[in-house]
């Protein structure tokens, strides 16, 4: 029996998630639906280096806040089903906007592989992206991709396994919110860390930030624990 693990594809709408999905899974994908909601979810799998890798294509979102259904679906999958690896697919020709989601995934403490897709388009628009510096700044491996031409696919497959096996160079990035907010974040974080169940379910710092944002979904979910 092949060993199994699950990866999720996350990214802004139109960043090439589905193209990457098709590249990874080939003809073995099938289309399904999330129970109860109308947001499309695709699942597939592939074999690589003795692993059977299950791939979940999440709806395209700009952020992981909780006001639209697709965002909730994407976030809940990452928070609750805890995929072993999250591949964050970026449109390199629009990095600034795309990195916003990346930052949220970093805060969620997902095991990230960052795929810089559409690098050819970025180059033709005159952007120069320092692919060697990004992993250091983001604390996760970065793979340059041109998914439509399957360029970088092999590298992506390799990095996914590396991250799963814990071999990739990773660094915990902490985003600093300024002394005024940090005081409250740290206070809440300490309280959450003291609760065994909560700190098992959610990354404590992330939960602290969401509580300060008064995120409706999160408030509802932990309402019973307070």
């Amino acid at each position, binding site marked *: 029996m092949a060993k199994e693990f699950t990866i999720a594809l996350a990214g802004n709408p139109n960043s090439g998630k589905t193209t990457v999905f098709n590249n990874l899974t080939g003809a073995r994908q099938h289309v399904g639906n999330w129970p109860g909601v109308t947001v499309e979810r695709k699942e597939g799998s592939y074999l690589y280096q003795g692993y059977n890798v299950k791939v979940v294509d999440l709806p395209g979102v700009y952020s992981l*806040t909780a*006001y639209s259904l697709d965002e909730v679906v994407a976030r809940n999958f990452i928070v609750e089903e805890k995929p072993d690896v999250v591949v964050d697919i970026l449109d390199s*020709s*629009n990095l*600034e*906007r795309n990195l*916003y989601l990346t930052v949220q995934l970093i805060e969620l403490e997902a095991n990230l592989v960052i795929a810089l897709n559409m690098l050819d388009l970025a180059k033709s628009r005159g952007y120069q992206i320092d692919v060697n510096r990004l992993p250091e700044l983001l604390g996760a491996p970065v793979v340059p991709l041109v998914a439509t031409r399957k360029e970088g696919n092999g590298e992506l497959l390799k990095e996914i396994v590396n991250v799963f096996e814990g071999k990739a160079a990773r660094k915990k990035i902490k985003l600093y919110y300024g002394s005024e907010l940090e005081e409250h974040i740290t206070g809440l974080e300490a309280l959450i860390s003291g609760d065994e169940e909560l700190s098992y379910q959610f990354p404590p710092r992330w939960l602290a930030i969401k509580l300060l*944002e008064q995120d409706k979904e999160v408030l509802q979910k932990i309402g019973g624990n307070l």
Partner: protein
Amino acid sequence: MVNQCMPLAMVSPGEVATVVGVRAGWGLTRRLADMGLVPGTTLRVTNSQMPGPIVIELRGSKLVLGHGIAQKIMVEV
């Protein structure tokens, strides 16, 4: 020349404006921020007709807003 502060809905197509603030509730402010519309952002109005949505370009992407929302976004031209 003195810069004028006005709702985004009043900006004519083709004009470039800088966001001064969003006069809305927490949810909408957050939503717009998620899409890159925060104070200090420069944007260009590409289409604005009455009735009909307002199309703006910011940070290399296009955003379509209803007039109601565009009334709540204060910009400087």
